């Protein structure tokens, strides 16, 4: 296949697919519009750029050469190059800098689209520049590497992302570094002072804290109640059944340090409530340290 034809077809086809994917994700409520705005604007720019290029390609090679060296097109090339590199680097940065990225579909789409659109920007620019300079535009054939760059790499990245998103097992215990290394009593005080403020700060964040084991209950999963130095208030720490083995040797009276996801603060709804305990609720706990009583 002629390279110029390949550029046109693959460009439109891939951009069409990208648009369709974005529209589907928005319709299915899997990504917010504000997550997609950057790749979307990149997409519009690339589309405009390709349209212009094709228009001039069809007219005359001489014209392109002239525009390429003198006209506004030369500035356009610079912008598209910078945009291409920027989008690719940003895509890679999002992948590597985001903790737990495979549980956030919006962010994965964002990173994928940024990288792919950046790749397209660079590819079209570099290839067209090369073809124009060597005046081979109408006669060059596509190569194996063209095919790899423009078809295999983006499809491979999308397939890999979808596989990773769908296969990711839910977290059963806190393995990441804690967001807060803090006495549980301090967290409780913040909840007592302002429930909604403390909830916004701690909910679903990993807390690392210490306490003395009061009791351990449960069969299919374990609930460890900790004395955290507050009268009548305990830390209720849930261990998933997959993490039960790690606390097998823990007994009432032991001093432990745990790492858990915060699930809020419970207090009785009214005075007549039978569930009268006040507790800091924690889930997906992991044992960090244990001192025998």
């Amino acid at each position, binding site marked *: 296949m002629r390279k110029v034809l390949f550029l046109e077809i693959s460009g439109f086809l891939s951009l069409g697919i990208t648009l369709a994917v974005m529209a589907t994700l928005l319709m*299915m409520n899997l990504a917010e519009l504000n997550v997609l705005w950057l790749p979307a604007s990149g997409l519009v720019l690339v589309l405009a750029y390709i349209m212009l290029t094709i228009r001039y390609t069809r007219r005359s090679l001489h014209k392109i050469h002239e525009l390429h060296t003198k006209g506004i097109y030369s500035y356009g090339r610079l912008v598209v190059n910078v945009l291409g590199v920027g989008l690719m680097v940003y895509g890679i940065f999002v992948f590597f800098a985001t903790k737990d990225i495979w549980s956030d579909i919006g962010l994965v789409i964002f990173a994928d689209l940024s990288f792919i659109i950046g790749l397209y920007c660079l590819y079209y620019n570099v290839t067209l520049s090369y073809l124009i300079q060597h005046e081979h535009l109408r006669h060059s054939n596509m190569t194996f590497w063209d095919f790899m760059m423009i078809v295999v790499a983006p499809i491979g990245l999308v397939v890999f992302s979808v596989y990773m998103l769908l*296969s990711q097992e*839910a977290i059963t215990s806190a393995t990441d570094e804690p967001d807060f290394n803090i006495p549980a009593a301090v967290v409780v005080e913040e909840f007592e002072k302002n429930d909604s403020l403390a909830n916004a700060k701690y909910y679903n964040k990993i807390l690392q804290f210490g306490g003395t084991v009061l009791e351990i209950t449960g069969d*299919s*999963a374990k609930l460890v*109640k900790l004395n955290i130095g507050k009268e009548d208030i305990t830390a*209720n720490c849930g261990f998933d059944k997959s993490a039960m083995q790690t606390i097998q040797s823990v007994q009432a009276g032991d001093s432990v340090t745990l790492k858990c996801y915060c*699930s809020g603060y419970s207090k009785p709804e009214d005075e007549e409530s*039978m569930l009268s305990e006040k507790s800091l609720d924690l889930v997906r706990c992991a044992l960090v340290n244990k001192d025998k009583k």
Partner: protein
Amino acid sequence: MNIRFGFLTMIMALAAIPLNAQVYKTSTGTVKFYSHTTVEDINATNSTVAAALNTATGAVEFSVSINSFQFKKALMQKHFQENYMESGKFPKSTFKGTVEKNSAVNYKKDGTYSVNVKGKLTIHGQTKDVTIPGKIIVKGGKITLTADGKDFKVKPADYKIKIPANNAAQIAEEIEVSVNCELSKK
């Protein structure tokens, strides 16, 4: 005065003993839900459910932390908590009700009793009056409250849980909720 006060305190303490003794509790009850569609089956389990039953009055209470529901896949769990249940805003679901015909249940004798529990179910900040068919199992001084998912179904739409039209194929219109809480005397 002091003698009177002491006498009053003693009477109150004595009166409180049988009342307390009638309350059975757990912090490690289990609630599971199951959504079946032709596209996908979704299961989740919560094994740290707090529940209490007063055998004298038949009063029942449940408190379920939404964040404690454990799914198999991370993406499902995230959608459930953040998009559908908005667990940051509504961290708990609760049920407060009464066992109908409580006097027909003999809590002192081992046995299985089919009962209806009528009360208020709060999910996603919305409260509805519901009647849940279930069983009370008395065995060895412990009381187990169970409800079968085939009998206890919850419609997300009733509780203003928004599921986008395009996801409707993956999530059942009615979610089957099963309950199993073994309570002991507190």
